């Protein structure tokens, strides 16, 4: 049971350790899909503090999809946490987002800079599976 009193910034949700066996969900806009249905590795990039995902403990794929501006234009992919951690220099950090009311929010932190680390993007693209396909 998680106790929230330890959170130093006053969020009702404490950051938790995420087990390797768990899953991360991530939205992928239809623009990041290739014509053959494969995912463009360009989608694996940092925005802000890291690559934004949702932890399966507090989110379903549907929840993740519905947080998009236009859910029907987004797919959701899943990645096993343990596999994410095998990608060099990538850390999985639970970062619940009170402002967006998203307790599942999790950043994958580490160098994904397009020029200096294309390896990370190649590896992310190999470990992901599509769990919801866009419809719009």
């Amino acid at each position, binding site marked *: 049971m998680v106790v929230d009193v330890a959170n130093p910034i006053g969020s009702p949700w404490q950051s938790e350790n995420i087990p390797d066996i768990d899953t991360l969900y991530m939205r992928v*806009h239809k*623009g*990041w899909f*290739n014509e053959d249905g*494969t995912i*463009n*590795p*360009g*989608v694996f*990039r940092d*925005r802000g503090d890291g690559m934004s995902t949702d932890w399966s403990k507090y989110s379903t794929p549907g929840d993740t999809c519905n947080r*998009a*501006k*236009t859910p029907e*234009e*987004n797919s959701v992919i899943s990645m096993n946490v343990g596999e994410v951690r095998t990608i060099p220099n990538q850390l999985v950090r639970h970062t619940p987002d009170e402002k967006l009311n998203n307790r599942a929010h999790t950043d994958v932190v580490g160098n*994904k800079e*397009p*020029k*200096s*680390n*294309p*390896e990370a*993007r*190649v590896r992310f693209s190999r470990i992901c599976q599509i769990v919801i396909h866009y419809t719009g």
Partner: protein
Amino acid sequence: MAKLTKRSNAYTYGVPGLVHPDEILKSAGPAGKALADSLLGIQGSSSGGASAYTLPSYRSTKVPGEAVEHIVDAISQSKKILDLQYDWDEAGSPGYKRKTWERAKNFLLENAANLWHINETRIDAPKILPGPDGSIDIHWKAKRHELLINIPEELSELAGYYGDNEIGQSVKGTLDTSRNHSWLWMWLIQ
């Protein structure tokens, strides 16, 4: 990897060496000519402009159209990248600059021609994709190997690359796209 036979009707541009990307396009059949025509008046000359990226000095060589026509097709298809506007992915991704795309185009054409010149071999066409932060990715993925080259939005920056294959060999680093990198393409087809 298919190895092509020299054709008697190969386009000839004089002594062996590098060939200008625009000339390669023109040698690549109707698709190449159409792409070259569509670029006229838009890019000026590929080596012109005030960009920090400078194309090499070109000499001429034979480049059979079939050595590069599949690359030209991929380049033509990728032109739609230039239509993407800011926030095209609902996540704040920027649009793409023509000069970034032209750098990718020239890099591919020059190296396809060089590879043919060195080894009479043609490489499979890659995917040319919108990348992160206004960069463009050149991506080969097959059963036995994968190679991702990132062309940065900023023309003065080196391109980054990573590749590996089924026997565990990998390559990664940065490269100057104005130079000949046939070695990397040879690695891909080994």
